[in-house]
Each structure stands twice: as structure tokens, then as C-alpha cells.
């Protein structure tokens, strides 16, 4: 089945940002990013000024998709947590609510054990928020901001 279009409103966005902010702090992480499984960047917290978050989101999604493909090949549903170890920096990826990927970037100031522990708690909170987003989309037929765009609006983009 085709996934529904994802619409993120201010209220849920603030809640998601707050969870990422706390996770950064509690896990002693350098940065925390949340990306959509299809490669769209959602939000980030921490040391991201010098990070190309758009590329990171796209590559994370590609990486995760490939890893899930591998899991299926060996009879697993998916690998819900993936860890990449570098010389200084490490990445911990985990799937949230079946539709987003929580990325934690950390160095020697933290540890894999601490990150895994904190990610578990944050994942539960994020899952609740994402469930609420889906419910909202189903119960309230929100008017799309694009319902009223005209052909001229679209043409103007290319002029």
C-alpha cells in the first residue's frame, strides 16, 4: 500500500524537536537527527552547523533501505538498530514508528550502551507522537495549502 502523504504541523514538530533536544543531552551525543524513511530531513539538534543534513538524510534512508533489504534476504523482518563505528565519531540508527529513522552521532564522550538506552526511551515517545500525526491526518481532513494553487503559481516557479 502507498504511504499517506506526511504532513507535519507546528505542534507535533515542537514535540519532536523537544524529544531530540533531550536525547542529545541525555545521551551525551554530538547531534541527533530525525529523517523520514524516504530520505526527507525532519529535524536535528546539537552540533549540525557544519553538517550537510540534506545529504545525510538521503544517505541514511538509502543505507537503511539497503540494510532492511539485507535483513529480508536472511529471513529477518528488519534490523531495527544499526551501528556504524568510526575512529572518532559513530552513528547509531534506529527505526521509529515504522516511518522515521532516528540518527544519533556520538564520540568518546558517550558510549554505545548509553546511546542505546536513551534511544529506546526516546523512540517510544516519538512513536506516540507519530501515531498522533497519523490519527490527526485520518480524523481531521486538513485543507492542503496547495488546494488553491493556480496553474499560474506553478508556471511562475519556472519563469
Amino acid at each position: 500500500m502507498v504511504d499517506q502523504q506526511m504532513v507535519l504541523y507546528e505542534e507535533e514538530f515542537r514535540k519532536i524537536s523537544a524529544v531530540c533536544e533531550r536525547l542529545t543531552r541525555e545521551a551525551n551525543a554530538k547531534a541527533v537527527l530525525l529523517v523520514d524513511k524516504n530520505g526527507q530531513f525532519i529535524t536535528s539538534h546539537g552540533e549540525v552547523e557544519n553538517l550537510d543534513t540534506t545529504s545525510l538524510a538521503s544517505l541514511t534512508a538509502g543505507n537503511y533501505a539497503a540494510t532492511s533489504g539485507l535483513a529480508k534476504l536472511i529471513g529477518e523482518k528488519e534490523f531495527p538498530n544499526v551501528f556504524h563505528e568510526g575512529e572518532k565519531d559513530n552513528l547509531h540508527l534506529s527505526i521509529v514508528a515504522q516511518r522515521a529513522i532516528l540518527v544519533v552521532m556520538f564520540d568518546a564522550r558517550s558510549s554505545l550502551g548509553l546511546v542505546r538506552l536513551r534511544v529506546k526511551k526516546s523512540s517510544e515517545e516519538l512513536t506516540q507522537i507519530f501515531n498522533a500525526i497519523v490519527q490527526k491526518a485520518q480524523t481531521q481532513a486538513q485543507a492542503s495549502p496547495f488546494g488553491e494553487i493556480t496553474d499560474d503559481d506553478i508556471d511562475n516557479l519556472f519563469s
Partner: protein
Amino acid sequence: MSFINYSSREINCKIVYYGPGLCGKTTNLQHIYNKTNPEAKGKMISLATETERTLFFDFLPLSLGEIRGFKTRFHLYTVPGQVFYDASRKLILKGVDGVVFVADSQVERMEANLESMENLRTNLAEQGYDLDKIPFVVQYNKRDLPNAASMEELRRLLNPRQVPDFEAAATVGTGVFDTLKAIAKLVLIELKKGG
């Protein structure tokens, strides 16, 4: 599947360039990258082999400007064209909003075009999409080569649905932006319908 973010007032859409091996999908993206203002584009990522064949995907984020106060961002992806990379192609089609089929106009590549088109239809169906219903355009690339097949034949075989189609020579840029504009427009029209 587009992503509308009210907080950052952004709308993100995903466009995938599909087609047989060496038809010019990556060349399309490279031309777009080279001819776009630095402020409108992000970094282009190519996951390629040592011989510059696409291994997983190419990725290019583009900003087209604003509609009704929302920034429109398009994420352009290519798939690896070689037949044996089918598992990777399926992954890249996830969450797609629009597809560009890049055909290789050379007579001897007709079979490969048809096979790739059929593969696109199958892989989209696996994700729950119908090729006849999603935003879709066809580009006939390599029109500048002497062994290019006639447009009549290409159209008959590859575009029976008569979606917007374009002649191109991606190495020199002919037709590349016309193709991009056409698919972006179809995606936005679809978005409008959805609202």
C-alpha cells in the same frame, strides 16, 4: 509521497530518473547541477563504481522557489540502470512522487528500453503505485547520435499513454530542463489534486 512541513514551511517531493544502463540518467542530473545557481541546489551525491557506473543512486536536492509561502524542494534521484541492480532500484522508488523515464534513442538499445520500462512498471506495482496514474514523463535521450531510432517508433513503443515527452541530448543539455520542468509541474498538479 510528498512531505509538507508547516513548521519550516517547506514542501518536499521526490523525483526518480529511471531507464536502462548508460541511457544518461546521471548525465541529466549532472547537467542540472552544473547549470543551477549555487543557492538553489545542495550537494550532488553519486554512489558509483570505480568506472563511474551508478552503484546505488545519485542524489541532487533542488529548490525551485516559493508557492503560497511554502518553499518547494525537489529531491532528484537516479537508479542504477544495469539489470542486476534490481534490488537497489526497488528501494529508490519508495516514496516517489514522479518518474522520468530516460530512453536511449539508439536503435540497438530499443530492447533494453522496453525491458527497463517493464521493470519500472513491475517495481512500482510492488510499492503500490500504478505507472498509468502517477506523474510520469518520457525523455528520448541521445537524439544527436547518428544511429538514433525515429521518433515515431520510440513514441509508439515507449509512450502509448502519450504522457509529456521530450527529445534530448543530455551531454550538451538539450531537453534536460524541459524534462525537469514537465515532471515538477505534474507533481505539483498532483499535489493540488490531493488537497
